[in-house]
């Protein structure tokens, strides 16, 4: 398509969205589906507006845990990856474990974290999020820092550069696309980690506990409204990283070149 207009680009997903919502509404009505199984979109929308401020109040706590945990975990992942460039034996020793641990459902440790720090202590959620985000970040960064075209290193050698210059001028720029890929993965994981962590116990005003309680009290419309807020938060988090990526690495293929 040559220079499609905005309408042409955005119309298909918008049509699909409304089609699904309308179909959902109609099916719930026609098949007479019970409210606790699946509330109609109109019912959820009503609950959404009625409980919006209460949900956002809980969401603030959860987002805070997710963001702090994300910064700690992803930050530590970057630092450890940088250290492994300097100390190769460290990389060879750590990588097998990192890859193994990355395929473990770390969220299963949430009750342990609650036990260690206390379920109402924000530290319990921050730690679970930090651990969940650490491994994908570290593994991706190690790849980005080490999977460098050998001729680039040879070129730098021909300029008699120091290892530090190779790091700053070759390895780190080379790792940036990997960094953003990891940040996208981590942004989703952070929110999942925080909410699921709260399912195993947390303060009253948190998204996980809110969803759990409303579901237990058969207020499924409220639970669904909160789930939608979590989804929107996840998308917002992802979009922020996408925007940062466009600014930071405009040269990269993953960035839209139109």
């Amino acid at each position, binding site marked *: 398509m040559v220079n499609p207009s905005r309408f042409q680009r955005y119309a298909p997903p918008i049509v699909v969205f409304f089609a699904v919502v309308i179909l959902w509404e109609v099916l719930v009505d026609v098949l007479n589906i019970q409210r606790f199984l699946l509330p109609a979109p109109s019912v959820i929308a009503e609950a959404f507006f009625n409980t919006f401020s209460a949900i956002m109040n809980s969401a603030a706590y959860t987002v805070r845990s997710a963001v702090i945990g994300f910064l700690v975990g992803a930050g530590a992942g970057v630092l450890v990856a940088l250290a492994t460039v300097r100390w190769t034996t460290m990389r060879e020793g750590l990588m097998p474990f990192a890859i193994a641990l990355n395929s473990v459902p770390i969220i299963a440790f949430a009750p342990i974290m609650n036990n260690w720090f206390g379920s109402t202590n924000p530290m319990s959620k921050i730690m679970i999020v930090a651990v969940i985000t650490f491994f994908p970040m570290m593994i991706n960064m190690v790849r980005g820092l080490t999977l460098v075209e050998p001729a*680039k290193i040879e070129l730098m050698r*021909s*300029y*008699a*550069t120091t290892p530090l210059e190779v790091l700053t001028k070759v390895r780190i720029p080379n790792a940036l696309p990997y960094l953003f890929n990891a940040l996208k993965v981590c942004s989703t994981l952070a929110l999942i980690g925080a909410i699921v962590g709260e399912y195993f116990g947390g303060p009253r005003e948190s998204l996980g506990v809110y969803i759990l309680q409303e579901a237990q009290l058969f207020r499924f419309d409220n639970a669904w409204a909160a789930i939608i807020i979590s989804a929107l938060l996840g998308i917002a988090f992802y979009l922020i990283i996408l925007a940062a990526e466009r600014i930071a690495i405009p040269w*990269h293929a993953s960035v839209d070149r139109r």
Partner: protein
Amino acid sequence: MPPVVFLKNVNKIFGPAERPTTIALRDINLEIEPREFISLIGPSGCGKSTLLRAIGDLIEVSSGEVMVNDKPARQARVNREYGMVFQAPVLFEWRTVLRNVELPLEVMGVPKAERTRRGREMLRLVELQNFERHYPWQLSGGMQQRVAIARALAFRPGLLLMDEPFGALDEITRERMNAELLRIWHETQTTVVFVTHSIPEAVFLSTRVVVMSARPGRISDLITIDLPYPRNVETREHPRFFELVTTVREALRKGEEMRE
């Protein structure tokens, strides 16, 4: 004037000393004078790239003497006395064309204004002055290789080492790049060591062609190319050009027969 490159009894053996796996170079002796254009030609595995890397101190030789500008190759590398062009352009995807050309100047601590001035001058030399803000992926293969040449020449090294720089280009682009390279060589007064496996390319470009043979890699012949400069499209149709192509081809064949 001392030779730009001086090689004496150079040997390169891969693998452990007691159980060598490949003799990449055996008893290489060669002197390259200032302003020469030397091509290293030979079958794959004859060690021509290894020899080029030994001159650039990108690999260590097992024995023998490698001198560049009258000093050990390592010292010449540390002094940044040569520019290198690889078969792939090896451009940094995250840098614009101009900033790619500026890379060696940046490493050498040249101030920003001077870097930009010199970078632009080099881009004019390779006729890419209108592409300084482009990213590498926006250029064709031939243009990317010209950026690589501009980068190698940016700090005005006296010696240019080129490892099959046009090997990945189509025949038409390659011939145009050959003419371009001769013009640049003429304008910059550099000495060039050029690895290739194309006989016409070697004959068209060089003042001398070094014929190598494989297993073990060694110099089997040295052929002086007495075609007059400037060389152009007509040169390729000159009877003497065909004679020299035949001479190099026969030297390559003879080298193959010498194989142990």
